[in-house]
Each structure stands twice: as structure tokens, then as C-alpha cells.
């Protein structure tokens, strides 16, 4: 399966409001009724902006129900669209803002990278993994990131090498490291197993 857990692998704490903040921006990209209920029934003081990435259909989302009256709710249907909405939100945000990111690791760490370009520090952002365990995988050979990887071995979308997906995670790149598994004996690639459902 995978290598031993490494120190760089993120451990996600239960998502809680940081009530020392005076403005709050929450990005969610997965349904989690219990979490939505817990967070939204006891909102923090100050403004709350919720950016919700969800499929464009008519279903009711747990995140759009029970919203506090004061919350600003913005919906996006693709990650690119969500990132544009968040870019605008960060652009006008003030010091005192706390950022909460809940969803797939691929999505939350891309938002995290965006926030860092606005000079946001780590004590201003909280992350929670929700939904898929799929990994973004950075190819250490060609530097392409292959997204949505469920298996422990994957073919790099950039160079086609068979990459072994490590637990070694880069916060800067927002991806796990993948390295060529058949470098010693070309062509000797074990069968891939689903490791990150």
C-alpha cells in the first residue's frame, strides 16, 4: 500500500470557528450535513462569506439551509469559478479575516495557495478534508500535477511515467509527491490498487 506516514502529511483537525477573527470566509466543496449543522447553527461574530462549490443541479445542499441571515452565500459550479469568486473575496478582505477550507485536498490546497498570494499566514487558515480522499500528485520528474488520483500507482498526466504516490505532502505545491516506480527495472510496474477512495 503506501509508505509510512510522514511528518509532512496533513492531519486535519475538526473544523471549528476561530472566534478571535472578525470576518470569516468559508469555502466548501462537499456535502457534510453534520458539519454544516454544527458550524452554521453557531456562527461566529462578524461577517461570514460562504463560497460553495457544487454541481449545477436542483438538489438542495446542506450548506444553503440554516444559513445565518447575515451570511453572504455564493455558489460556483467549477473549481475555476470558485477560485475566481474567492480571489475577489480575498481582494476586498480585511485583516481579522479567518479562512476555512473544507473539501477535497485538491480543492482546499489550491484555495490555500491562492490565499497565500494575498499574504495570508498559516494561523489565518484552517483546512478540513471532506468527501473524496483522491490525491493531487506532483511528478518529481516532470513537475506536472495529476489530479484526482485514487490509486497508489498512477500514470503521470505530463510525462506518462508510472508514479508511486507517496504520503510526502507539499503545502507549497498542494500535492503529494509521486516518483517513478520502475526506474530500476523499466516496465516492472506492480498492479495499481485503490488506496484513496
Amino acid at each position: 500500500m503506501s509508505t509510512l506516514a510522514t511528518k509532512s502529511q496533513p492531519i486535519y483537525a475538526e473544523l471549528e470557528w476561530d472566534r478571535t477573527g472578525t470576518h470569516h470566509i468559508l469555502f466548501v466543496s462537499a456535502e457534510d450535513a453534520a458539519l454544516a449543522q454544527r458550524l452554521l447553527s453557531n456562527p461566529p461574530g462578524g461577517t461570514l462569506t460562504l463560497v460553495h462549490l457544487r454541481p449545477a443541479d436542483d438538489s438542495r445542499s446542506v450548506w444553503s439551509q440554516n444559513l445565518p441571515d447575515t451570511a453572504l452565500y455564493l455558489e460556483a459550479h467549477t473549481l475555476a469559478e470558485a477560485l475566481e469568486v474567492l480571489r475577489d473575496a480575498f481582494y476586498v478582505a480585511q485583516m481579522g479575516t479567518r479562512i476555512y477550507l473544507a473539501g477535497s485536498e485538491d480543492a482546499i490546497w489550491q484555495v490555500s495557495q491562492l490565499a497565500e498570494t494575498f499574504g495570508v499566514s498559516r494561523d489565518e487558515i484552517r483546512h478540513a478534508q471532506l468527501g473524496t480522499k483522491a490525491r493531487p500528485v506532483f511528478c518529481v520528474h516532470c513537475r506536472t500535477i495529476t489530479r484526482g488520483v485514487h490509486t497508489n500507482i498512477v500514470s503521470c498526466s505530463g510525462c506518462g511515467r508510472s508514479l508511486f504516490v507517496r504520503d510526502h505532502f507539499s503545502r507549497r505545491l498542494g500535492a503529494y509527491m509521486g516518483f517513478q516506480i520502475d526506474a530500476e527495472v523499466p516496465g516492472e510496474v506492480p498492479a495499481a490498487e485503490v488506496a484513496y477512495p
Partner: protein
Amino acid sequence: MSSASLNVEIRRIRDLAPGIREFSLSRTDGDDFPIYSGGSHIVLSLPLSDRPHRNPYSLLGDPTDRKTWRVAVRKQEDSRGGSRWLHEQAREGMRIDISAPVNLFSLNRLGRRHILVAGGIGITPILSQARELARLGADFEVHYAYRAPEYGVFVDELEALAPGRIHHYVQSRREQIEFSSLLAGRPLGTHFYICGPGGMVAASMNAGKALGWPESHLHSEQFLAPTGGEPFDVQLTLSGKAFTVPSDLSLLEAIEQQGVDAPYLCRGGACGQCELEVVDASGELIHHDLYLSAEERASGKKIMPCVSRLKGGCLTLNL
């Protein structure tokens, strides 16, 4: 364990304001100084008659000037001799030892905007930070509070660095910085830096926290002068020394006088380098430092000997 020292000559002394003097220093071996980062300080070893006396001062010149380093010294009324020596005895051409630069007040280069605040002589590290930010082309502003117009030292240098971005607050004109409004509504990614009197620093930190600023964006520096106090006895377990700290020496100075090499960097209660383990204390630990947390103080297991003392009794240290 003291950091490497450099021998320098006092090249120039300038009186800048009542009680404030600037000293320009050059290396006696003719070599270049290292480049330092904005906000750094050095420790000067001053040849007072009975003992060497070490005081920290911020470097205020251009961090890339490798021929001359500058410090500015305010004469402390209750000085134990350091600032008084610099004001009354120091002459151009004299040689003294200084430590390598240490930075406990560095800029966060990932910041998108920087607010620098100086109170009085606290302008010295702010000035070198402003120079570094100007060189980087960063977005910054300076807020400078001082007692009266004649105390506004280095205002010309500041104005040249950031025309129109220097804000003055002159106490004699009843002007003062309102931190709640200064820190309100600032864009994400702003960093705040302050060097000044304790009350001013505390007021700014409280205003920042109330507005939701996280600790990582609130930066401050204060140096404390060791205050004298009642004499007390000290035992050092590792070196086997037993002695009394007189009222006019700090614990660190008394340890050094015994020939014991104790660690230190800032000598002003700020950096934490000189922390010593308390084995036993028959008496009350008087903590003056800005480093130990409330829990660490309560534990009674740690002391910063550069500024802190014992009231009565005997202090046993693991040194």
C-alpha cells in the same frame, strides 16, 4: 557562548537631539561588515571602569552599507552606566567590541503591506526596516511618535525613503496614535511592526487583537535595561560556584564576573537565549523579561538572568 565579536572604532559622534547621540562605527581591521537584515541589533561592550558593560542597540543605517554601522543612543536617566558612558565618556577614535548582528524583529517578506510604528528612540530598528522595504519596493508606511519637534530624529532620512508615507505624532502638540483606527480596515496580508515604550506597544497589540489580527502579523520589539535590586546569593551546580549578586549588577553580569560562560544574545529580556534552569529558589523570582510565558513564570523553573532577579534568599541554577 557569547557571539563572535568585532573590534570597531567610533568614527563619528553626532548629537541629534537633547539626550540622543548617534555613533558611526567602522571595523579596525579594515574589513567589510557583514550585511544585516532590517530590524537587527548589536551588543556593544563598553569599557566602564570596574567591569565591561554590554548594551544592545539597533542598527539604523543602510543594511547594505558595509563600511559604516550606525547606532543611536538615548541617555537613560536611571542608567547603570552604559548610556551615560556613551554620552559622557565616549570620544571619536575610541575602540570598542561589538557582537555580530542578531535580528529578533525581522520583516515578513510575504506581507503585502507593512505598517511601521516608532515611539521615540524606537525609531532605530524601524529606520533600517524602512530602508529594507524601500529597497525591495514594498508597500509600507511609517508612523513616528515623539515628545516634541526637536526629538524627531532621522525625519529627513525617513522622508527621503518614503516621501509622503511618513506620519508624525508630536506629543507636545497633543497628537497621538489611535491604534484602533490605524489598524482597522487594513487589507488581508498586512503586517504591523512597533518599537517603542512598553505602554505604547501593549496598547497597539491589544488594539490589533481586538480587531482580529493574528499574532503572526503583529511584531514588536522592546529592550529592557536590567534594573538593580536587592543583593541575593547564587549557587551554580555544574560549575560549583557560589557568590552574591550585588545590587548594581544583573544576574548575568555577576555570572560572567565569576568567569562562567553563560549564553546570551540581546541582554534585554527579549530573545530568550540566556534562559537558565532554576534548580531551587528560596525566595521570590522577580521576572522582568518579555520572553517567558505566564505558565513558565508560574512554574518557577526558568529565569532570564539578563534582566531578572531573586528577592531574598538563594538561587540555585543548573549552570
